[in-house]
């Protein structure tokens, strides 16, 4: 059995080398298919990073009336922290709120003058709420509309990045849809090319196949080299892809980071951490695709 298996691999290698240019074209198309799929992977990663970055900036500021006591505000804070949707609630006291207000408007003489005329701190305490997900904010805002809280609340400022997130998701889903169509086109071309490659290989080896059948080679032995050839194509294409994609993302990473205001996006780290998953899945999918294509070609063109 092992002897036959090794011979099948040997014959598969022979098939590959004897139709070298055809093999090269096949691998090129497979690599193009994989590149289009990996562009999708990168875009998906960048879109998620962009959404995460924006989501981190989203929060709700709740301004309490100036007469509300610190204990009442802290009670609200405790209540909010008890909600599973709430990640963090920052308490900004009256004095701190005033300091922030003054530092923000120190150049505006009118505002500063008005503050001076009032003579006392007109600002209440503030709670800055962060949710686990941007989708949780409507629920939190609704909770605060409860009469139990509204009597204390002066105003709520929902720093609405929802629209930005929506737009990022929209653009990324459009790009991904385009990528999926492009990948589907490449997959179709790859299937046709693999079928044709195996067909030519069968034609090139028709004499040998005829003799193999004549002298009693089993059907699987006749077929297996072509299937192994398909797996070999998948392996080489994945290898070439790795050799192309790593230098590309290493070169591209500084530009990507610059796009995200110098923040380290970790594109290379993402590929490093998911190396086995990304390339392993792509290899297995491609090998499966090639085996299916080769099986079709064998069924169609090789009667054993």
């Amino acid at each position, binding site marked *: 059995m092992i002897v036959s298996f090794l011979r099948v691999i040997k014959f598969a290698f022979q098939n590959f080398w004897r139709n070298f240019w055809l093999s090269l074209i096949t691998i090129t198309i497979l690599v193009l298919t994989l590149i289009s799929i990996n562009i999708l992977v990168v875009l998906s990663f960048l879109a998620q990073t962009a959404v995460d970055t924006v989501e981190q900036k989203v929060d709700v500021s709740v301004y309490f009336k100036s007469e509300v006591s610190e204990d009442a505000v802290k009670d609200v804070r405790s209540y909010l922290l008890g909600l599973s949707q709430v990640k963090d609630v920052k308490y900004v006291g009256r004095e701190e709120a005033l300091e922030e207000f003054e530092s923000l408007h120190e150049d505006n003489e009118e505002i500063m003058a008005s503050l001076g005329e009032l003579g006392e701190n007109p600002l209440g305490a503030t709670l800055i709420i962060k949710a686990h997900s941007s989708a949780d904010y409507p629920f939190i805002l609704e909770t605060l509309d409860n009469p139990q809280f509204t009597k204390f609340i002066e105003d709520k400022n929902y720093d609405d990045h929802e629209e930005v997130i929506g737009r990022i998701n929209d653009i990324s889903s459009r790009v991904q849809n385009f990528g999926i169509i492009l990948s589907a086109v490449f997959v179709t071309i790859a299937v046709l090319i693999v079928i044709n490659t195996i067909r030519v290989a069968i034609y090139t080896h028709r004499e040998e196949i005829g003799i193999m059948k004549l*002298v009693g080679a089993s059907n699987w032995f006749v077929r297996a080299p072509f299937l192994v050839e398909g797996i070999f194509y998948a392996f080489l294409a994945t290898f070439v892809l790795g050799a192309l994609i790593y230098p590309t993302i290493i070169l591209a990473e500084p530009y990507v980071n610059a796009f995200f205001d110098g923040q380290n996006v970790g594109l290379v780290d993402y590929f490093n951490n998911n190396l086995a998953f990304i390339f392993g899945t792509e290899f297995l999918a491609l090998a499966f695709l090639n085996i299916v294509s080769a099986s079709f070609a064998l069924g169609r063109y090789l009667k054993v």
Partner: protein
Amino acid sequence: MYSPTTVGVKSVNLHIKPGEFVSVVGQSGTGKTTLVKLLIAEERPTSGSIVIGGWDISHIRGGDVPILRRQIGVVFQDFKLLPKKTVFENVAFALEVCGTKKSRIKKIVPQVLKIVGLSEKAGRYPRQMSGGEQQRVVIARALVHRPKILVADEPTGNLDSINAREIIELLKRISEFGTTVLLVTHNREIVNSLHKRVITLDGGMISQDNEEGKYIL
């Protein structure tokens, strides 16, 4: 391609004993090659049965065909040798594709090359050999599985009379070792010189079947 209504052979009823040397003769298109194809399960009979060594192969499953073919050596007029392989490699190929170990191949191939008288030419390529020698390589390849039956379909068709005689002598020797030989030919001289059983096909049917027969059409 033939139409489905074309009949290759019909009402053929024959029994060949183990170790027998039988010539099948007939004009072109009388069903000789169809008979060979039926024996190696390249074609299936529409009715009737074909039994080889007690094994009814009339409705043989595709997966069993290789097992059958290892028991039947086949020699064709057009040799069917691989031009890029040496004599040794061509013969070894028949064992390689059936999963035989390398050590056993190294043992068997020289033995069969010795039987066909090509021990000295094991390293040559088919193009470097005469037609007769090439046909002997084919016979060697057919013998590596120690077949019970050797079917030779026009083995001398591409050979001159001297080489043809050598091949027939070789087939006779193989028959003497106990292998059943079925020689398909339309070479009158060879058939008449054999003094063995002759089956004559005409229009897909057996017209004559004679022990120590002659080529009569």
